[in-house]
């Protein structure tokens, strides 16, 4: 391991830690999000912060970036006390951040998003031409190929994420926090991000890096801090904390032995989903495949493979330009919308949970039961009691924290919001379950919970389509259909190596 000299943690350097937080406590009503936690990040290092969903990571981030004040505890940056909350300029000069939740301005151009509030440094009037040129240059270094004049709302989820990362890394702060930056990036984009982070580290920039992908932590970080249930568990050099111990620290239990998580292979029944020659203009062409009851099929591909377009056409939220989608042998209909598909027995987890997944101000119970009002009705009247019963089943089945049906979903941690979305998909006991990036932002144990719930549904005869590029998700699949640049390029069945799958998603011919 070759750390830049400034990062050397040994040798008694006199430089104070970039950030030192101690005794931080933060409560939200009945929830304690942080309970006397500490964090100490040495200059020039990449410091990982890990913990299960709801452990309090993002809450700490909001405190470290001056969005919220802790109820108790102190924060120091390079030995200086944190500036007052109102002094945004001071905060911005100390720390830059990519928040877990998107902070893109959908109505502004990509260029303006990149340079918001610094459109014309040192001048009074904005020179749009300069701004655009600057933005285009910045995005080019990230291999993001978009016109910087278009509005940010037209970007794909991945492009949006990259714009955010580019924005925060371009501000010149010497301490950068990344809260789950890779949750929606494909392997190639992650590699580019890492190269960029390492280059900045060489220049002495310090990082706090949050991710649920532990292999990233091992690849990138020097130190790691683990939080669990709002408490600080351990801080150690990553070399001293092997994978199993790290997982144990996060979950408080020993990591289980990896076994094949797949339910028994399905029989030869009529398919529950048949996609034939599906074409969505500009996204995918001539895609055909089937899913049988009880079968878990992966639809994998890197960014730009068109896998989400296929999935959205299947669930009825995007209109295909050609081909047919047939659910359980119903007559194929071109103009089937979501409501129609739900009736036909489709449940799904949408690609972007914040946009389509839930209603933030409504409770967990209402969100979970949104697709099944008929199950709560008696003579057209909704029963609150039954609603809470259904919600309790979901909370228990998927281990949603906090365990309060009446909690507004807006106040849940990211991973728990994802569980709510999954619960909503499962609630109407679908014949076909379409899961788009189902475990994005979900911790390693909850990931298992979610995917096991999908596997359980498959055991109960549901056909499951997992639309993802996450190797852990795809491990649950009986077979994986691979897409590249809008076309199906291959299929893996039975047993396969991760390497094979990764290569296939990157467009390298399958040799079999």
């Amino acid at each position, binding site marked *: 391991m070759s750390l830049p000299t400034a990062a050397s943690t040994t040798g008694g350097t006199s430089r104070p830690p970039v950030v030192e937080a101690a005794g931080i406590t933060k409560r939200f009503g009945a929830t304690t999000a942080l309970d006397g936690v500490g964090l100490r990040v040495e200059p020039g290092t990449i410091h990982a912060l890990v913990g299960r969903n709801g452990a309090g990571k993002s809450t700490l981030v909001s405190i470290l970036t001056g969005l919220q004040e802790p109820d108790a505890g102190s924060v120091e940056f390079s030995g200086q006390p944190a500036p007052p909350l109102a002094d945004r300029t001071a905060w911005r000069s100390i720390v830059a951040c990519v928040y877990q939740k998107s902070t893109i301005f959908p109505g502004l151009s990509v260029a303006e998003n990149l340079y918001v509030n610094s459109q014309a440094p040192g001048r009074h009037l904005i020179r749009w031409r300069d701004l655009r040129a600057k933005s285009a240059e910045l995005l080019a270094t990230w291999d993001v190929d978009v016109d910087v004049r278009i509005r940010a709302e037209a970007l794909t989820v991945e492009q949006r994420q990259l714009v955010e990362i580019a924005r925060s890394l371009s501000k010149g702060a010497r301490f950068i926090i990344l809260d789950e930056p890779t949750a929606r990036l494909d392997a190639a984009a992650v590699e580019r991000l890492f190269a960029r982070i390492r280059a900045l580290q060489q220049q002495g920039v310090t990082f706090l890096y949050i991710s649920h992908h532990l292999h990233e932590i091992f690849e990138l970080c020097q130190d790691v801090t683990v939080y669990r249930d709002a408490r600080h568990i351990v801080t150690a050099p990553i070399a001293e904390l092997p994978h199993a111990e790290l997982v144990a620290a996060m979950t408080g239990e020993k990591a289980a032995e990896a076994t094949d998580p797949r339910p028994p292979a399905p029989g030869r029944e009529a398919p529950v989903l048949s996609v034939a020659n599906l074409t969505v203009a500009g996204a995918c062409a001539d895609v055909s495949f089937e899913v049988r009851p009880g079968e878990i099929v992966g639809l994998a591909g890197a960014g730009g493979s068109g896998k989400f377009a296929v999935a959205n056409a299947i669930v009825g*939220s995007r209109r295909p330009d050609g081909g047919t989608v047939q659910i359980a042998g119903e007559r194929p209909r071109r103009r089937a919308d979501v409501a129609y598909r739900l009736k036909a027995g489709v449940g799904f987890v949408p690609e972007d949970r914040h946009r389509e997944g839930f209603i933030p101000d409504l409770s967990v119970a209402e969100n979970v039961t949104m697709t099944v009002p008929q199950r709560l009705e008696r003579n057209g009247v909704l029963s609150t009691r039954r609603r809470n019963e259904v919600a309790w089943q979901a909370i228990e089945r998927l281990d949603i924290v906090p365990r309060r049906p009446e909690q507004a979903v807006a106040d849940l941690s990211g991973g728990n919001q994802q569980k709510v979305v999954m619960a909503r998909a499962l609630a109407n006991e679908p014949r076909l379950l379409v899961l788009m990036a189902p475990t994005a932002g979900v911790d390693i144990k909850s990931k298992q919970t979610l995917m096991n719930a999908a596997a359980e549904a498959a055991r109960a005869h549901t056909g499951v389509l997992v639309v993802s590029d996450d190797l852990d998700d795809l491990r649950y699949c009986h077979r994986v259909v691979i897409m590249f640049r809008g076309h199906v390029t291959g299929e893996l069945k039975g047993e396969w190596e991760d390497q094979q799958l990764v290569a296939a998603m990157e467009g390298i011919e399958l040799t079999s």
Partner: protein
Amino acid sequence: MTDTLTTKPDGTTDAARPGSRGVTITLARLRDFALVPPIIAIIVLGSILYPAFRTQATFTDLLSTMAWIALLVVAESLILITGRMDLSLESTVGLAPGIAAWLTLPTGINHGLHLVPGFWAVPIALAVGALVGLINGFLIVRLRINAFIVTLGMLITLRGVLTGISHGQTFFGLSGSQMYLGSASWFGLPASIWVVLIIFAVGIFVLAKTRVGRSLYAIGGNVDAARAAGIRTDRVVWTVLIIAGLLAALAGIIESGNLASVTSNLGSGRIFDVFAAAVIGGVSLNGGKGSLFGAFTGVLLLNLIFKVLTFAGVPNQWFDFLNGAVILVVLMGQRIVGGRTDV
């Protein structure tokens, strides 16, 4: 900010089970009842200062004069919860009974057309209301034009139609059927009060307890997620706009019956009061939040304050000033005392 649950720190396995739901008072609930204490305070204050205030007549009068505004508040609240808005309601209030009068009244001094007999007045007025809602829906839902500008345009257009057909004059001598709801009395109370109470009760029930009712909150809270949950969002929004038009027409029938005439400026300039009552009552302008009970307390509070001011002998010329000032003060009070951030 603490709610009354006895939940342990997250994740402990013995967190509250369904059985212990009994006394959970959620913040959302509290928000609905926020205006109850000030309402009681004003009633008590009025009763102490002015003995005449305490009589049943005062309250009957209060409720029947606010009946039509209250119906508009129901209509606007439904639309606001769904995440849209409708400014044109105040014009529908005038236009619906106006057209009914125009088509049913005799020619000549009543400047009607006398195309249909008098008992058609109420169905005609309701049809006009529904039609206005239908047109609003077409522009907002189908053509996807912003609700503010659409209904602002409709506000002016509809008022213009009424002025046109009435030549800016007043329709009087209305048919008995058109007068009925605004003037009859059922079980010793004006019929308009019963109508308002029934509509609020039905509205509160539907919003809290039925699938469509809940879908309004879902649409107002996050329209994409609502669509992804299988709610036919366009259809629901359109329906809500039509229902609002119907309610505005009903308000118009009641108020014209009460006044025994349709002036060409009936309802004009009152949409601000409607919005204010709804918002004070806890309905969010951002959509997805609020209740009709809250909205009812909003209208009631504003009208009570006015009643007291009338008793205090405040001169008429100052009413507009006071109207605006009272609303602004209440909003500021809520922001400061209650910490509401969405008004």
